[in-house]
């Protein structure tokens, strides 16, 4: 799919971006029994973009997703925006590092992405509140990143299988 013409490429990335914004905005309303834990459905689209296209497209998609979703929700440059940005920054970095090793499947990439998304949010919370004890929530986010990352990784694998078929 990387060799498709620029128009098709732009159209596909735009569709992926639209879907990731939709996921980003709808996800908080999904009932998850653990407070503060989310599935990370929007990360599926980032991972698909990375595997189908390239690193640059994934970074752009993730950044634009946070900015546009925050604009639509009216929280741009608010605490929620910086939390999302911190999470996306850390999760994108770790995903790219692990992806470059060529040793991990989308499940491993999703789990790492989910874990580092939580780490990024904790770092932002520590910076905002000037309280290192925000790290108290990190074990919960790391532990929950395994089932959530496994679910999103499996969804990514299935979608990629169908897209490549």
């Amino acid at each position, binding site marked *: 799919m990387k060799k498709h013409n620029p128009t098709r490429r732009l159209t596909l990335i735009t569709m992926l971006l639209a879907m990731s914004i939709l996921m980003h905005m709808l996800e908080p309303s999904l009932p998850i029994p653990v407070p503060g834990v989310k599935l990370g459905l929007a990360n599926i689209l980032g991972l698909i973009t990375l595997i189908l296209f390239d690193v640059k497209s994934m970074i752009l998609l993730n950044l634009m997703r946070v900015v546009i979703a925050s604009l639509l929700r009216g929280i741009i440059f608010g605490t*929620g925006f910086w939390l999302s940005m911190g999470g996306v920054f850390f999760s994108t970095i770790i995903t790219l590092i692990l992806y470059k090793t060529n040793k*991990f499947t989308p*499940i491993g990439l999703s789990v790492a992405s989910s874990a580092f998304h939580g780490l990024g949010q904790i770092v932002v919370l520590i910076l905002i509140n000037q309280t290192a004890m925000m790290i*108290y929530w990190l*074990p*919960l986010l790391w532990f929950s*990143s395994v089932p959530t990352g*496994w679910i999103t990784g499996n969804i990514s694998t299935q979608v990629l299988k169908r897209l490549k078929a």
Partner: protein
Amino acid sequence: MNRYDKFLIIFILISSVILYGTMEWFVRASTSDKVVAIVTYREKEILRIDMSVDNNYVVQGTLGDVFIEVKDRALRVEKETSPYHLCSIQGWVEFANVPIVCLPNHIVIMIQNSKSQPEGEDSVIQ
């Protein structure tokens, strides 16, 4: 899922359990007999609660009133106006340094050890 994925998952699970154990040990060990809860709104202290007295408090958050309850040396956010009520779902907190973060209301509650001011602290020794 390959062996690298499995190794990564095991690493994350083990590190989260170790970190959780360390944090729990730390908050229990660092909690003294006399503790106060400090309530901040947009990083500014707005209320200091004596945890030894059972009482109810109301503070103004960004989205509305935040109701705080203190009972048996433990504290919780009883109810608040927010989209998902994560703050009140968290439940009772009794140990120092465990934060309650009400993000939409910009309210953070942190239990801290009460420091008594030693007498003559300001005296100059020559």
